[in-house]
């Protein structure tokens, strides 16, 4: 059988760049294979995907050497439209790629462009909708759908064309963990039922491996670093070297001093043969230090019996109550649309609660205006592009002080101080546009920090970031939390973030508070995880399968150990 995708000595350089993005790629993918492509941001994995679906070179031009064949044809002769009959791409932005006014129209989009008669379209759209379980939603507008549903519509939209290859570009980026799991399951079913070739590009390796894949291709700095089975790959140290996060249970096994062998099938913790490892893991658990006790501090933000609804009788939030202590790092988690953002809108004063109180330092905030609250509670949006409105970094950071009429000398002093805190001082006279995404994120945080807030609320601070950038942003937040005593609240659906960086998780499901506990306890409680669309951590399965009686304690100790490790590493780097 001939490969359906074949790269031979393939290199590609974007027109605007001096260095090639892809170098000497040799890769053959057989029809019906399911391949996971992983790599950090900027490794070239997206470019590789663009070469397959035709966006390179037809939308993004550049020079290539070597050969690429798709279905034994040269992409250049097929053109982007010819390729679209062979390769169906599902992009990561679930909103942006939803083109139709309703579900049915969006699924039919490719058919309409191919001049398929209406009668036939009805039939095909029905079939595709059935396949991904959105048939009841055909008449719905995108605004009425959840992120997961929109993604399934996009899948139907490419499958309707009967393409041979399905290409998923970071399918998990915008989904809550349980929905992500379902998406991976759906992709698996499609492959099994329809014998399609599946390519998944993703850096969340553990989540993507929820269902079997045949191969994992690791890309680093434009080259293929590894091309092997999951079992083989997980037994090496390649992922760590490339800055891709390993599944947590693999990290834990390594901490316990185990050498992982491919024959124990480490691809899934549920089915992994742990016989040779149990003793070591148990031993590690017993020796690992307990999590240090948190010292009690005073309350900074207290929510009492909070209710909110847009229309009478349809409550969005009910009976929410929690007490956040000074200097804590807390995550607010729950499925998309559970009321997390509404809660932050209430805290910031954009909406008024229907009942209940929000207290800051013991004082009711009800009489404070949005602006007054903004001096005490800073809100950082998900994307820095949603906040930055000045062309120069200095002006952007100074904005909050300028509109408050702070004297110029003081502004200068405070802005410089904040820029130093955020590691942006060398760039103070730069335009914002010259910065990387991560640096822009820092600018948007700096523009809030400059106002000296007591509490910082961040909406999905690490969305769409790879492991390296994720760590960079989170370590920065940890630093300002520790050094300046700023309380940090993060709205997130990233399980790793909540586990590794927060002391407490407030879990909201369908408008109710269903848990307020340590992340380790939340993520080892099946009932809570299910209700809030979270995912039980694989560390829990590891602990249970190694016959450790206190799985959540195991998770606590693992996290404490990881933090310790990270701190030591930093100190070494500082020296």
């Amino acid at each position, binding site marked *: 059988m001939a490969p359906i995708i074949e790269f031979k000595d393939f290199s590609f350089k974007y027109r605007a760049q001096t260095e090639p993005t892809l170098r000497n790629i040799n890769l053959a993918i057989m029809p019906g294979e399911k391949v996971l492509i992983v790599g950090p941001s900027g490794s070239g994995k997206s470019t590789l995907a663009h070469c397959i679906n035709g966006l390179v070179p037809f939308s993004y031009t550049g020079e290539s050497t070597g050969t690429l064949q798709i279905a034994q044809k040269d992409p250049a002769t097929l053109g982007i439209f010819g390729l679209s009959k062979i390769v169906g791409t599902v992009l990561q932005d679930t909103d*942006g790629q939803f083109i*139709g006014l309703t579900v049915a*129209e969006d699924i039919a989009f490719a058919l309409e462009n191919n001049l398929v008669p209406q009668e036939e379209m009805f039939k095909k759209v029905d079939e595709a909708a059935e396949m991904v379980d959105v048939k009841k939603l055909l008449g719905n507008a995108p605004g009425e759908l959840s992120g997961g549903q929109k993604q399934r519509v996009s899948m139907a939209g490419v499958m309707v064309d009967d393409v041979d290859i399905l290409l998923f570009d970071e399918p998990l980026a915008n989904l809550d963990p349980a929905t992500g799991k379902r998406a991976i399951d759906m992709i698996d079913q499609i492959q099994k039922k329809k014998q399609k070739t599946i390519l998944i590009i993703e850096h969340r390796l553990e989540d993507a491996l929820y269902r079997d894949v045949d191969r994992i291709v690791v890309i680093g700095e434009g080259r293929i670093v590894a091309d092997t089975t999951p079992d083989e790959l997980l037994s090496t140290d390649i992922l760590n070297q490339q800055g891709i996060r390993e599944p947590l249970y693999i990290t834990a096994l390594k901490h316990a001093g185990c050498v992982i062998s491919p024959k124990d099938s480490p691809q899934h913790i549920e089915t992994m043969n742990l016989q040779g490892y149990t003793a070591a893991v148990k031993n590690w658990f017993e020796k690992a230090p307990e999590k240090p006790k948190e010292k009690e501090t005073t309350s900074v933000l207290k929510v009492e019996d909070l209710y909110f609804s847009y229309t009478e009788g349809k409550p969005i939030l009910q009976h929410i109550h929690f007490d956040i202590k000074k200097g804590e790092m807390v995550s607010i988690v729950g499925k998309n649309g559970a009321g997390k953002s509404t809660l932050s809108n209430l805290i910031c004063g954009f909406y008024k609660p229907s009942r209940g109180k929000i207290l800051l330092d013991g004082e009711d905030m009800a009489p404070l205006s949005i602006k007054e609250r903004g001096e005490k509670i800073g809100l950082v949006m998900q994307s820095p592009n*949603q906040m930055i*409105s000045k062309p120069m970094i200095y002006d952007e950071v100074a904005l909050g002080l300028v509109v408050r009429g702070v004297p110029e000398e003081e502004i200068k002093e405070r802005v410089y101080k904040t820029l130093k805190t955020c590691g942006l001082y060398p760039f103070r006279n730069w335009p914002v546009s010259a910065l990387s995404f991560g640096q822009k994120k820092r600018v948007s945080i700096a523009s809030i920090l400059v106002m000296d807030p007591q509490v910082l609320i961040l909406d999905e601070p690490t969305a769409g970031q790879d492991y390296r950038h994720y760590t960079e942003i989170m370590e920065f937040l940890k630093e300002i939390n520790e050094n300046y005593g700023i309380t940090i609240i993060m709205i997130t659906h990233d399980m790793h973030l909540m586990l590794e960086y927060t002391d407490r998780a407030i879990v909201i499901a369908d408008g109710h508070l269903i848990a307020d506990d340590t992340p380790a306890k939340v993520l080892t409680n099946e009932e809570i995880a299910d209700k809030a669309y979270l995912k039980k951590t694989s560390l829990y399965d590891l602990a249970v399968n190694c016959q450790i009686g206190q799985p959540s304690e195991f998770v606590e100790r693992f996290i404490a150990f990881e933090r310790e490790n990270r701190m030591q590493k930093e100190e070494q780097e500082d020296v």
Partner: protein
Amino acid sequence: MSKILAYEEKDTWIHQLSGVSKLIFFLLWCFTSMITYDTRILAFMVLFSLIIFKISKTKWKQVGAVFKMIMLFLTLNVIAIFVFSPDQGTHIYGTRTVLFHIAGNYDVTKEQLFYEFNVIIKYFTVIPAVFMFLVTTNPSEFAASMNKVGISYNVGYAISIALRYIPDVQGEFTKIKHAQEARGIEMSGKASLFSRIKNTSSIIFPLIFSSMDRIDVVSNAMELRGYGKHKKRTWYMEKKLRRNDYLTIAFTIVFMIAALIITFADGSRFYNPFV
């Protein structure tokens, strides 16, 4: 949430008509109304518009706010005509019957009043037609209908895409506005009008930048699914023409021809009661 001028599904024969026939009716009806100044025909058109408006079961709250706006412009228009051209009626009808004198060379004449009356009822022939077209046509059908009457599908699709993403951009706008307000940029009535206008830029720029990111995704998504591949495309939401559609189109064409014949029978587009 109030949905002004938004499509609402109802079970009337007007709703069931294909968007194509409604679009043809709407265009030819407006064209006729623009051409003719024949008061008899305009009067008939007003009456007819009101009847079908009633049949379409359109509720006042769907159109009330926009109607008030149009009334405001109508009033301005009528006043402006008088201010800038007080003798337009005389110019058209050839006679000058002064009712009373105002000031300078401003006289109120019967001819002027009659002319402006015609302008007013022209508005009223078109308003119900516009409203009805908008509230009875499924927006999903707009693009298909426009394409069917010969307009390039790119134009129709541009409108579709706009309708699709307007709610998203609105949501984004609210989010950005909130975040900027928290930073202390006052957008409420507390700030002066000038500073509010100035402050708008702190919302508009982030809005533009985040929309730019989106445009890239949208155009890639469209291209990857073959948009623009052929000179034509088919439409999932297109409604087949049925008996009522043919009747509507036939009526519209017959009516337009008849109206134009009656209007131009005396060689002028104006009906002149003064001779």
